Structure formats: C-alpha cells, structure tokens
C-alpha cells in the first residue's frame, strides 16, 4: 500500500491528507498530522474524499452528439470537433460569441490554461467560473476597500484572536477545520459572536448570537460600527495613519441607532450592544464570513460594511486580526488568482491596463482583446438571446449551481455548440454536444490554492479511469488546435509559466512546495511567502471606507416566506461526488425544505409531509422538515439534489457591482400538497 500526500478536493480549508493506494486503487484517506491546517484531523467529507474516485458512473470515453445521441469517439476526434466548432463560431460571429467556463475544482494549472484558451486561443475575455456565484463581492468589495480580495490572515491566526465575528457562515458544516480553529480559540478565551438568521451549530455555541432577518446585514453591521464609534472604541490612530474617508462613514452609520437597527433587522438593542462591546474592546478581533454575506443582490455592500468594521477598529495587518472570506471550493481562490475572470489576467492584472496586456501579449506571443468579457450569469443571458453561441465548460454544472435553472436550461439549449469536460455525467453534460472525460483530483498533478492563499501540491495517486485525462492535457491540446504553442511536458512546466507572468506567484515552483505549501504573495524564489496581508501598507496605499446604506428591508405580500439556499455538511454543491459516496449520501439521502414548526402548523404541514414551494422563477414539490433552527417566516433548502433543484426557485437578480446572483433571499409562497 502506498500513501500519497495530496490536498483535499472539497472546501477551501485546504487540508493535507494521504490517499491510501492498493494495487492502483484508492482504498482510504487519512489526515496528515504534519499539515498546518489539518494537523491530523479531517471533516467527514475529507475522511471519505476518495470514495467516489472508482465509482462506476465515472466518464471513461469522449462522447460526441450525433443525431441526438451521444456516441463514443476518439480523443482526437472530440478535441478536433471542439476546437473547430468554437473557431468557426468565433470566425463567423466574432470572439464575443464564444466563452469558457473554468472550474474551481480544477487545479491552478488547468485554470491558467483554460483562461489562456479563452484569451489567446479564442481571443475573448469571456471567461469566468463559479467564483462569480460565491465571492465575486469579496473580490470587488475588499479589492476596492483594501486593494486585495483575498483572506487577509491565516486560519491558524484565529487562535490568537480575542474576539471573532462569524457572519453568513455555517462554519461547522461548510469549513469544519476553520470552525475547529474558531472553537479552539473560544476555549482559550476568545469571544465568539455569530450573526445568522439560522441557529446553526456555531450560532448555538456563540457567546453572543445575533439573529438578523434575511438580507439586513448592512443595517446591523452599520449599527455595530455606530456603537463602536460612539463608545470611543474605534482605532483612531489606525484610521488616521492608514485609511481615508472615515468622516463620511461616521456620518453615514450615525443613523443606525440600536432602535433603527432593531426595526430593520429584528436584533434587540441589548444583543447588538453586547456584540459591539465584545468586538470593539477586543485588542485583536477578526471577521469570518462566507456565502451568507456575499450571495445577495447587495453582496458587495455587505462586504464593504464588514471591511468598514475591521478598518474602523484597526483589525488588519496583525496576528489574530483580519477579514476572512471563506472560499467554498478547494481551489476557487486559485481559479481567481489564475485569471479565470473576465476582467483580469493571472495575479489580478487588469485586461484594460495596456501595460499588463502588453506583458501578457509578449509572454503568449499573440494579440489579446482589451475589453472585459461576460460574467458567468451574463453568459447565460447572452446565450438565451443568441449573442453567445459557443461555450467550453470545464467541470461546472450550471444546470444545478446557477440561479434560475429554467433560464440556464434555455440558455444552454440555445447554444450552437457546447462542450463539457467532467468526471461524472451531470445535468449539464446531458445537454452537451461534446463530453470529455476528465481526471479527478486523485488522478492528476498540480496545485490548489486554499482560502488562506496557501498554494499546495495535488498529487496523482491512481490512474484515471478508462480514457479519462487530466484537463491540463485537454487545455493544451485545444490550444494547439487553435494555433497557440502549448508544449507542456508536465503541470510543473505550466506552473513555471504561471510564475513567470504572475507577480504574486513569481516565487512559486513545485520543489518549494513542501508540506505547508507557500502563501502568496510570493514574488521571487527566495521569498518565504506572505501569511498576513497589509502589515505595513495596503496595495492601494491607504485603505478606503465606503459608506453603505440599508434603511428598509422589502417584503412581498404575494410571497410571504423567504427562501435561503445553502449546503449541508454531508454533501458538496451539486452532489456529483458526495451523492456517489455511500456514507455521505446515506446521511442525507433526499431533499427536504426546512421550516419552523410554527409555520408548518399554520400551513397544516407535518414534518415529512409534502409541500409546493413557488417563487416568481419557478416551483417545485418537496418534503418539509420542521426544525427550530430556522426562524418563522424563513425556509432553508440545500441545492444538492437534482430531484428537487433549489435553483428552480432562485432568480438571476444580480448585484450591480459584482454580478453575483441573489441565492440567499428569494421570496416564496408555500402550500401543502394534498394527499
């Protein structure tokens, strides 16, 4: 039996684990005690991370649609068809008519090459990935306020925090190793403040629990700021030396008295006051947030409000402080870093910046388009309207993960051509013209970048099934067919190219990536990496306060309930891996909408009874499960289940600044299904 050291494929914690390999098969997983995050521990998904690898459903051969049926083909035929169709569309309808969606499950090397495929191969900036649906507001909001959209401090640093505010994060279920660190800090004396409409496990363990109404984050965060400033707890020296725009912020938040905040958010003044004191008085305080903050049509404003909070209290640039957007996928940070976004190259170099563009043109030996491309959800709209005609998707399942499934289905069906590289058949591959079988994380080499900017090795433990291939090879083969030289002997050579064109990855190379990896920025080969950002200064010089407002929360009498979507501990995203992991699927085998027992009683629904949930976008039938972890008036529904896809109900209402859709607050009505 061999033990292959690699990085977990699920969430952004970036745990180091061993895959146990016997005769070319993955037979188990165990955590690496020497790894700085896992420290010999894993969550339940991590312990079972290799279980799906040999599932019989794995895609094993390339498929091409012929006469409405998927037919097995050779790799050469499938790759040539894909490259030629995309090229034809590009030549006929222009580069704006083609696009690439990359995958936050892919490696950095794959994301870099797929972004290169879009830009150098297809001459379009239409490239995006699922970060659009998770932390686009962090990239936009923290980028504007601090100059960098990434987590500022390492996960382990939370152990030295005196107060930790967790908001919009079901941390124990979605980032269990971060939760373990937070709970360890709490055991050592840190005050734990949790704001969440649902009473999640971490909320139930909080020292101060805030339960705002859905969608009222800006109001209570401004309220906290107001109390902190009024109470003389702001860090005046930090504000004076390192920030700009405080006076406007102070004036803006002065409106948010505890009474006003209570009216909007439902948080009682004494709870808000206790939380403000705990956070404001802490010498070192940190903010941890996730999708509950960002997945709103005002997601960027929520992020800006949190940035204002850490800036006003001087909680940046030191151990135990910081603002920590927890990234959902194990490599969504890396996919962003690699420039799988429509407006930036790798390392967040703007495509609109002629100097940056000139450097990339020289490196890639080609002209590059100057205007930013379409974002993920905009691609779906463009496809439906016929402006987008050709699409390449690497490892995404928009039919399940994007808002307004009805719209996505019409969009994908309207495309003249689209190809998908995947490990399992999905709701999206079912509609594709070409399906390419991909290698899973256990079958390829590369790197993932965790939520704390830690670049870590991924190692091939077992061979891919059938004819499946690592997507680095797929991207390189497509690039060559589009006339771009792409002779890479290994992913390591791709990383060498990444390092040569990406200042923040300049010092990263495989031999340097030991057990703990390296945190970017790591600009040169002797640089030790950067665990804490903004120690001396911000990339934009002074950080900026952006006042944001929310003085009323809307309601719709036709749709009296608010639906919030999310994930469970036992499944990951659209379930293509976890629903094929026996123990995980057994834990949560079927979908159920969670509602408060009071609401259930009023509707005459028992736990286990069936209901119809309707929104302006669509409706579905599902089992109800009563639980007092959701407040009256709110229902929770995970989006893992193809048999009841939550995103039939959500709408593609986008945040104007970051283009993230509103997943967390959809007005719905519910009725009991007779019989």
């Amino acid at each position, binding site marked *: *039996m*061999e*033990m292959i*050291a690699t990085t977990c494929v699920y969430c952004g914690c970036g745990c*180091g684990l*061993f895959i*146990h390999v*016997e005769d070319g098969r993955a*037979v*188990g997983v*165990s*955590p*690496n*005690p*020497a*790894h700085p995050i896992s420290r*010999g*521990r*894993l*969550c*339940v998904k*991590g*312990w079972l991370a290799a*279980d799906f690898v*040999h*599932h*019989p459903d794995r895609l094993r051969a390339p498929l091409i649609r012929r006469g409405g049926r998927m037919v097995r083909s050779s790799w050469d035929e499938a790759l040539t068809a894909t490259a030629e169709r995309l090229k034809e569309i590009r030549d006929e309808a222009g580069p704006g008519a083609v696009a690439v969606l990359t995958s936050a499950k892919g490696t950095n090397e794959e994301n870099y090459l797929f972004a290169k495929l879009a830009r150098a191969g297809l001459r379009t900036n239409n490239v995006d990935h699922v970060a659009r649906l998770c932390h686009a507001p962090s990239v936009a909001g923290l980028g504007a306020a601090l100059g960098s959209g990434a987590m500022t401090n390492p996960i382990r640093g939370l152990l030295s925090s005196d107060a930790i505010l967790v908001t919009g994060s079901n941390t*124990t279920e979605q980032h*269990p*190793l971060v*939760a*373990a660190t937070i*709970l*360890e800090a709490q*055991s050592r004396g840190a005050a734990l403040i949790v704001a969440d409409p649902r009473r999640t*496990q971490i909320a*139930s*363990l909080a020292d101060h629990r805030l339960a705002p109404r859905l969608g009222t984050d800006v109001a209570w965060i401004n309220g906290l700021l107001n109390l902190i400033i009024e109470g003389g707890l702001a860090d005046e020296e930090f504000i004076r030396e390192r920030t700009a725009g405080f006076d406007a912020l102070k004036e803006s938040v002065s409106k948010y008295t505890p009474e006003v905040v209570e009216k909007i958010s439902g948080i009682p003044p004494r709870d808000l006051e206790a939380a403000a004191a705990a956070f404001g008085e802490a010498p070192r305080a940190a903010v941890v947030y996730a999708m509950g903050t960002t997945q709103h049509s005002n997601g960027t404003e929520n992020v800006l409000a949190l940035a204002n909070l850490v800036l006003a209290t001087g909680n940046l640039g030191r151990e135990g402080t910081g603002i920590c957007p927890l990234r959902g996928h194990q490599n969504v940070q890396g996919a962003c870093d690699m420039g799988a976004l429509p407006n930036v190259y790798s390392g967040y170099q703007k495509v609109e910046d002629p100097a940056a563009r000139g450097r990339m043109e020289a490196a890639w030996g080609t002209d590059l388009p100057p205007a930013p491309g379409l974002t993920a959800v905009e691609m779906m709209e463009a496809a439906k309207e016929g402006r987008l005609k050709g699409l390449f998707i690497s490892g995404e399942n928009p039919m399940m993960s994007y808002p307004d499934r009805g719209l996505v289905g019409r969009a994908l069906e309207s495309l003249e051509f689209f190809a998908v590289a995947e490990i399992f058949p999905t709701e999206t591959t079912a509609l594709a013209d070409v399906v390419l079988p991909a290698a899973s994380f256990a079958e390829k080499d590369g790197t993932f970048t965790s939520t704390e900017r830690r670049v870590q090795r991924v190692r091939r433990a077992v061979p891919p099934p059938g004819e499946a291939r690592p997507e680095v090879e797929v991207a390189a083969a497509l690039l060559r067919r589009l006339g771009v030289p792409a002779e890479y002997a290994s992913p390591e050579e791709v990383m060498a190219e990444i390092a040569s064109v990406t200042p923040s990855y300049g010092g990263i190379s495989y031999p340097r990536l*030991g*057990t703990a990896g390296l945190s970017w920025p790591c600009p040169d080969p002797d640089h030790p990496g950067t665990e804490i950002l903004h120690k001396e200064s911000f990339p934009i010089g002074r950080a900026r306060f952006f006042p944001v407002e929310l003085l009323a929360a809307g309601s719709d009498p036709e749709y009296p309930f608010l639906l919030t979507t999310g994930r469970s*501990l036992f499944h990951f995203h659209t379930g293509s891996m976890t629903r094929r992991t*026996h*123990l995980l699927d*057994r*834990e949560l*085998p079927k979908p159920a909408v969670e509602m408060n027992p009071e609401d259930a009683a009023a509707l005459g629904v028992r736990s*286990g009874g069936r209901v119809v949930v309707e929104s302006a976008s669509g409706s579905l039938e599902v089992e109800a499960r009563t639980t007092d972890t959701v407040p009256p008036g709110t229902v929770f529904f995970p989006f893992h289940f193809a048999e009841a896809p939550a995103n039939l109900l959500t709408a593609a209402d986008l945040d104007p600044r970051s283009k993230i859709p509103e997943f967390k607050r959809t007005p719905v009505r519910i009725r009991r299904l007779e019989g």
Partner: protein
Amino acid sequence: MTASLLRREGLVPLLRDLAETLEVVAPILVDGSAVFATWRGEEPALKADNPLNSPVEFFLPKREVLFRYVQYSGRYTFAEEPPKARLIFGMRPCDLRALEVLDRLFGADIPDHPYLARRRSTVVVVLNCTTPGERCFCGFLGSGPAAVGGYDLLLTDLGRGYLVEAGSPAGVFILQAHRCHFEEPLPEDHLEKERLLAGAEEELRGRRPALSPEVLKRAIEETDWEVAGSRCLSCGGCSLVCPVCHCFTVIDQGVPDGERLRCRDSCTLAGFSRMTSGANPRPSLGERLRHWYLDKFVYIPEKTGLFGCVGCGRCSRVCLSDVDRWSLLREGPR
C-alpha cells in the same frame, strides 16, 4: 533460538531480505508524517509517533472488494482475490491488542473469512513502546507499553540495537532463516529491556488515574453527553481512526458487472442507526458518542473479555472539537 540482538545498522538489510518473499509494511516518513505503508528501502520511522493509520487497516481495509461479479449470457461468475503475503514491521502493542480483540470478534460464531485469511497470511513484528506518545494511555488498559504475546516477533529498542524475541513458529523461522543479521544478546540486554519498559509504564500510569471497569461505566452514565455532543463536528474521525472499530457496511457497485464492497462505517453518523421508517434510536450526537463509549468499555468487554479501547490516543489526535476523550470520562466535558 528465541531471542536475538539486531544491531541498528542491521535493520534495513534484514527488511531487504524479508521483502524478497513478503510485502513488508513499516512506518515510513511521507510528507513529514510517519505512516504505515509498503516499505521500499528507506529507514523505518520507528522513533516517530505511532502512525495515525493503524496497521489493523491491513487486516480490515477501510474499503475492500469482497468479490467481483461478472455477468455473461445471463450467468454470473464471482471472483475473489487471495490475500497478500505480508509482514507488518513496527506494529505497537496497542495495535496488537486491537488485533486480539478483532480475532475474538471475527473468529467467533460466524467466522469472517476475509479477515481471517489476511490474519493467516500476515507476519506481525511488534515494537515495544519505550517512549510513549503524548496522547497514549495504554498503560492503564493493559494494552501497552509492552506486548505480552500474540506477536510473531517482538522488538525492544535498547539503544545499541533491538532485542528481538520470537513468539510463534513463524517468528522462530525468521530468526533462523535470517540468522546472519542477528547476534547473541547479552544477559544484561534482557534487564535493560525490563528497565526501559518499567520506565515507560511508570510514565503512562503517572498520566492517568487507575480506573476500574465499574468506575468507567459509572463515568459514562454520569457524563453530560448532550454538552459533549454540542461541540462534536460529526467528522466521524474517532471511529474511522480507531484500531478496534470494525463496523462496516456492504454495497454493490456496478450493473451488470461490478464489485461487492465492504466499507468502514461509523456509529457516530446518524445514518448508522436510522431505521427504515426514518426514526432513529440515537438521534443526537451526544447519544451517539455515549453509545461509542459504551461499546468500547461495556459491550465489547462483555463479548471478548478485553476492552474495546486500547489506549492508542488516536481518537483524541483526530478529534475536530479537540475533546480529550480520556478526560471526558475522567472529569466530564469541559
């Protein structure tokens, strides 16, 4: 010849000779941690902590193919693979005790053939613990730091070399067949072994108060499991890493051809005890944790006469909520 001395520099050559006929499994360093894996010529990591992956995994894999089924013209044929001939080098006395518990469980009533076949085809070379790990508490449970039987060969690190004692005909055979690597031990080598192990035992006993099974049972009854469960993050790690835990589930993967798999299961997961109706006799995390302790300290002793816990400390090492599981019994939850 039942006892010999193996000089330190003789260890790797001995393993190289053994590896000619058997797959040798030993603790080796991979990415900074000691793990049990196939030995490929490196220096074994015998000074490191006992690896998190217990060598029991080689007898009861976390995921094993019981047989493959192939359909041909409407008829099924079944294929089983014979077990590999293996030698596990450097197993600790606690893990050996875990094997003894499993022998009594899987060898009784309805014999478990895949387990017993692997047991028969594996040579067990145990290393006494002269320097116990930080979280170990085998001393109190009688499962360490010294092995008292059940091994093929037993090693004790005396500094200048390893005292090697045979405990079975297979062990005697290895000593004979590879005698070129061994030399005659001195009488004081046996005394040195006793001295080192007495020191280790004293250290372990100093860490934990002696508790009888009756006291343990009462401690389990008096612990507030709902408080303990409130901080449990449901990772299942304690039961997945435990060398004695052995519960499994059987699944068939693949139609019409495929595999019947036996996979490790965990009683800390709700689905383990959930009934067909959906009702669950142990619905809360606290109740499932309590059940896990009862199994280890009450049910398994009733069945086998041995504790279902060997004091290896792995459950504490992997616990996501950082519960020191021994203190939980001794002092109640924090």
